[in-house]
């Protein structure tokens, strides 16, 4: 039996989920801390704005913990969260009259990385451009690329998250990458 004080950042999701289901707030806190980043980035990928993504991230966790008793554990908890976040963000998008332009300052921290200032600047500019082009992809391709490259999900997990088969997730990913390459070279 794992005691409250034994729960750490390394405790497996499955155990944290069981404890959260019993109302353990520390387990909930750890699950939030572990997965809020991917939930935020998925929401950001769908919506393209920071404020909306934060609201969706918050609503995603509220819904997840409300419905924890219905989580069967067939998929990973992270995949389940991504599915909720994707659906929440799509709902927000549907309610919006038009989509806002992506905030370019999202990519500004990129300028702090890289070998030397001149190269850093070029890489940062290219990364911003890639991010803008990523935003132009159809949603399923965009999500497949985001989840595969930025979150390291398998095609099966991506399929579960976006509501498609593993094969369709693979096709969406490679179509998205091919289009991005064409646009980057144009």
């Amino acid at each position, binding site marked *: 039996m794992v005691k409250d004080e034994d729960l750490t950042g390394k405790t497996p999701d499955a155990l944290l989920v069981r404890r959260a289901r019993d109302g353990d*707030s520390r387990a*909930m806190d750890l699950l939030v801390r572990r997965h809020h980043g991917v939930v*935020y980035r998925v929401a950001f990928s769908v919506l393209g704005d920071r404020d909306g993504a934060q609201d969706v991230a*918050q609503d995603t*966790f509220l819904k997840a*913990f*409300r419905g924890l008793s219905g989580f069967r554990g067939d998929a990973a908890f992270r995949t389940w969260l991504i599915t909720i976040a994707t659906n929440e963000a799509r709902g927000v998008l549907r309610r919006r009259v038009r989509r806002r332009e992506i905030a370019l300052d999202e990519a500004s921290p990129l300028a702090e990385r890289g070998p030397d200032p001149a190269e850093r600047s070029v890489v940062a500019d*290219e990364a911003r451009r*890639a991010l803008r082009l990523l935003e132009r992809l159809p949603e399923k391709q965009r999500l497949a690329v985001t989840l595969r490259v930025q979150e390291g999900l398998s095609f099966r997990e991506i399929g579960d998250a976006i509501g498609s088969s593993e094969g369709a997730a693979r096709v969406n990913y490679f179509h998205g990458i091919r289009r991005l390459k064409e646009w980057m070279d144009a």
Partner: protein
Amino acid sequence: MSEDRCTEVRERLPAYVGGRLDPAAAARVRGHLAGCARCRAESELTALLLRARPHVPEDLAERIQTSIRYERATVRRPWWGLAAAAVAALTLGIGVASSVSDRTAEPAEYAVEEDGAFWLSDDGVIAGVPVLSDLSDAALQTLLADMGT
């Protein structure tokens, strides 16, 4: 360059640029990239996309945790508990209001604001006239939570 080999490498590029491949697998990918311009170009694009990962706001986890605690605190409370707390809060407000009407007798008990609102000074409970009717649902929930109902 073998098409099969390219397909295999392209599948692994996200893990390669993300540093999630074991050293032997990473060396094989690196070796392929050295001789395949097409896969190298895709590797560079994948690296750019990884760099473009949006920055997560620092206070987001805390904000989510707070909203969860708040919801759990309010959901656990039955409707009659909320009603009883509202009556208690209303009674307290009226009680304090009547005390204020003759506050000249005990001026040290209250801090009177210019706009007529006031605070009970000894136990930290906020009250005033009229209070409850002006409160939003969220503010009322917070007040009730503070009262420990």
